[in-house]
């Protein structure tokens, strides 16, 4: 088993169009580093010097990792990671 990562449309140029890819690692940071080996360029779109990029949201099993431990958030086999661009929410 591995960790499933859901990729938004705008980043699928780095995954040959794949909607979801798989990776391994014990933290989110390691997982992203692992993905970079097969999907070159992806890491830079997600992470900068300060951690996750401002307009990128990453969810571990639907929970925003910024409220967990950011790139140090532990991940394990069977988890689902979802990457989404920040949008203007519902704006009810």
């Amino acid at each position, binding site marked *: 088993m591995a960790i499933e990562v859901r990729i*938004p*449309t*705008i*980043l699928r140029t780095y995954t040959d169009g794949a909607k979801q890819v798989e990776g391994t690692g014990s933290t989110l940071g390691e997982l992203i580093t692992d993905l970079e080996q097969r999907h070159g360029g992806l890491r830079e*779109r997600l992470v900068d010097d300060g951690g996750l*990029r*401002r*307009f*990128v*949201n990453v*969810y571990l099993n*639907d*929970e*925003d990792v*910024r*409220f967990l431990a950011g790139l140090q958030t532990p991940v394990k086999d069977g988890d689902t990671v*979802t990457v*989404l*661009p*920040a*949008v*203007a*929410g*519902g*704006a*009810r």
Partner: protein
Amino acid sequence: MRYENLLDSLGHTPLVGLPRLSPSPEVRLWAKLEDRNPTGSVKDRAAFFMVAQAEKDGLLSPGSVILEPTSGNTGISLAMVARLRGYRLIVVMPENTSEERRQLLRMYGAEIIASPAAGGSNEAVRMAKQIAAEHPDWVMLYQYGNEANARAHYETTGPEILADLPGITHFVAGLGTTGTLMGAGRYLREHQPDVKIVAAEPRYGELVYGLRNVDEGFVPELYDESVLTSRFSVSSADALRRTRELIAAEGIFAGISAGAALHAGLGLAAKAAAAGERAGIVVLVADGGWKYLSTGAYSGTLDEAEARLEGQLWA
């Protein structure tokens, strides 16, 4: 209860228990029914406060034009306030919002400029900013960055909740402009330091995230991460399922964003119950289901409803 006029009846909405959805007598869920506001949504609070502040600041006078990007409820609230106060309202609204919203807006006399479905609310915000720059005499209240939006909840929603449930442990609401969570969240935290402030963010179909690149994303100026304890992304499927459970179990006919908040609330309730902790969880019901009937959210199977909702903004 008697009020001098419609605007005076703003707020003071009921907090009702959800006994059938609550896991135990120690872990209880409560719904704050914001559909019981003048135009039927939580946005009446923000609209009234933003207009009142603009009047105080001397930005609005009779006949003024108000411009606002909105996916619906804020527009409807502003349209009501504008009508009563004698302003003209122009809203910039994504074309993938429900027909009911359009009809309501027109009925109140608002004009609608449609923004493209692709890009969702981001695109409406971008267009509105552009139009505002071309019309310096128009007043954009700009709910995403207007402190009066969050203050409405700091001064009304938060105090109402605390008065009704002094033992609150969790407050869960949808995340859009972030005004509800920022305002009510700050107030509750000040008076109940251990309270958990939890955001339920709608996760839409891919069309809505149709940005050209991730640097074009949008974070509302009002948003302050430090107010929140956690933030959950809720899929349309989960939100729909919970919206129907709210009707089936508790008789509450709510909008779909309430289902998203309930989904997060039920997760917190299950966690508290498993840990043997007491919990008083308030879930904010932003509006009723009426404006979403045409989306098909309430008819047929869940799969059918989810398919019909694909690409629509439901919060």
